[in-house]
């Protein structure tokens, strides 16, 4: 089949990612509060974000600083001089008849994001990063096809957006997904973005197959959607080419329900947007802001990965996974304060992460239910052989599902391992009370040892380690 490798050089993909700077408190050009997600429609709006005549936009300084922060973290070149423009088109989600965006003087040019593919590390290069305002949100009663009209909520209108445009350098839907995942991680490290909020990241994807026209798929609203939309679109274009037909240059819409792309038959070209400098806003010289922002850049995933390895002596396999989520890395570091870091890394990555995933939770939940100090205590018991591996896992599960006190759980469930002296005492008892088995063993019936091990297991209700017990018994019998 043609799907044997994930890399297909003839497939060319570029992405335009719209990212809400949703950790800010107010919109891009007005003081309306951004936390609208739980609220009634049209309750976070004012004359500016409703586009009422005479209302004047004023730029949110923190939004520009957040945008610069992102540009720096993505290794882009922040431009010394940047300007807002009007992008003119009519659509019900735009109350003004234009969107305030950026055109020939964007905030930043270039940059890259490093992803890890099966073929090794790859730099996904960026064309540009610019600022713009989010439009409002349209909904339809019933479905888009049966509804007679749309309902418009302008709460989202004016939310600060970044548009991050990649070069057409990706060659598979999977690479596109890896890029988006990495971008999300970086944005969350910067504390400018909460990806869990609805509509926080929306993607337009350009895809073409060498020899065919470029197709733009508009407004895909989930990561899974991007991969599926691209897979469908690549298959569709390949089919056309195989049948000797042309792939037309066009814009398509992704239907998330049916997993197909549908032609929008829109012929709007760039010049039709009639961009011109927004006369109600003044230009921005970035030098001063850039200096302010430079000091606030946090440690980024790659730096953290190297530091974790150096500081804690943990392997790259663990460090690589830990930095995928800043909260997980923080959790690990707190556990590592109290217990052998290598032990902590393997339990956090291999066990706790899996148990959280299984429950559809992340490390924020772990902070709530199983605090790093509690987890460290549990691992200390394990290291001191006071609890078995199986026992640790059991406590983790109980803590995540019900909470409670670690010591209390171990005691009430009888999970404390039996001290070695106790095992030795029980072994002696087993030998004293079972002369026949002892005689059998000494007479060459090695299987008689199992009977003695069984005696100890029974006495400890299965909490002794059978292999270790057999070892002790053998030694005693052969003395």
């Amino acid at each position, binding site marked *: 089949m043609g799907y044997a490798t994930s890399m297909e050089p003839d497939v060319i993909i570029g992405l335009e990612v719209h990212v809400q700077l949703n950790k800010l408190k107010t919109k891009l050009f007005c003081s309306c509060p951004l936390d609208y997600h739980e609220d009634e429609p049209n309750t976070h709006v004012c004359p500016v974000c409703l586009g009422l005549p005479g209302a004047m936009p004023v730029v949110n300084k923190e939004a520009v600083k957040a945008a610069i922060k992102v540009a720096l973290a993505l290794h882009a070149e922040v431009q010394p001089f940047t300007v807002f423009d009007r992008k003119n088109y009519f659509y019900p989600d735009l109350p003004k008849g234009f969107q305030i965006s950026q055109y020939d003087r964007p905030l930043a040019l270039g940059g890259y994001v490093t992803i890890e593919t099966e073929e090794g590390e790859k730099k996904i290069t960026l064309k540009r990063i610019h600022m713009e305002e989010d439009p409002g949100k349209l909904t339809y009663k019933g479905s888009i096809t049966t509804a007679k*009209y749309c309902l418009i909520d302008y709460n989202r209108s004016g939310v600060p957006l970044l548009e991050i445009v990649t070069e057409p350098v990706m060659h598979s839907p999977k690479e596109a997904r890896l890029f988006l995942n990495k971008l999300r991680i970086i944005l969350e490290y910067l504390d400018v973005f909460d990806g869990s909020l609805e509509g926080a990241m929306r993607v337009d994807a350009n895809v073409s197959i060498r020899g065919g026209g470029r197709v733009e798929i508009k407004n895909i609203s989930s990561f899974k959607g991007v991969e599926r939309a691209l897979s469908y679109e690549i298959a569709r274009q390949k089919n056309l080419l195989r049948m000797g037909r042309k792939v037309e240059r066009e814009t398509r819409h992704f239907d998330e329900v049916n997993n197909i792309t549908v032609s929008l038959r829109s012929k709007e070209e760039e010049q039709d947007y009639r961009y011109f400098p927004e006369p109600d806003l003044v230009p921005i010289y970035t030098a001063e802001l850039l200096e302010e922002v430079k000091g606030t850049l946090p440690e980024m995933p790659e730096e953290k990965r190297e530091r974790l390895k150096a500081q804690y002596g943990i392997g790259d396999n663990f460090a690589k996974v830990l930095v995928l989520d800043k909260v997980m890395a923080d959790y690990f570091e707190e556990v590592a304060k109290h217990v052998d870091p290598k032990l902590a890394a393997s339990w956090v990555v291999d066990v706790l992460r899996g148990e959280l995933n299984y429950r559809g939770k992340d490390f924020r939940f772990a902070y709530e239910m199983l605090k790093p100090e509690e987890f460290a205590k549990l691992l200390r018991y394990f290291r001191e052989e006071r609890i078995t591996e199986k026992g640790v896992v059991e406590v983790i599960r109980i803590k995540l599902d019900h909470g409670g006190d670690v010591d209390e759980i171990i005691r009430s469930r009888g999970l404390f391992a039996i001290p070695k002296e106790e095992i030795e005492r029980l072994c002696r008892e087993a030998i004293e009370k079972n002369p026949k088995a002892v005689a059998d063993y000494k007479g060459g019936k090695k299987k008689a040892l199992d009977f003695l091990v069984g005696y100890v297991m029974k006495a400890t209700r299965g909490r002794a380690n059978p292999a270790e017990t057999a070892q002790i018994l053998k030694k005693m019998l052969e003395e």
Partner: protein
Amino acid sequence: MVTKEDVIHVANLAKIELRDDEVEKFREEFEKILEYFDVLDEVPEDVEPTYQVHDLSNVFREDVPGESLPRELVLMNAKHVEDGYFKGPKIMEG
């Protein structure tokens, strides 16, 4: 040269319907307007475009939430409203 098609295209972008005689009227006016732009041909190419006619730059607002409008006021002037939403036309492109 401004063609009839140019005028109709621009009218479409502005969502304005023109009668035939209006198309011709605008075609002539567009042509005259564009002639003014010939002046720009005399400007040397290394001149920076003017983004603003005054000297202001870096005018900012702090990220401090203010009051939004009460919804009665927001929807007051809208002809078509439903459940706190504005009602708008369904746009099926094409």
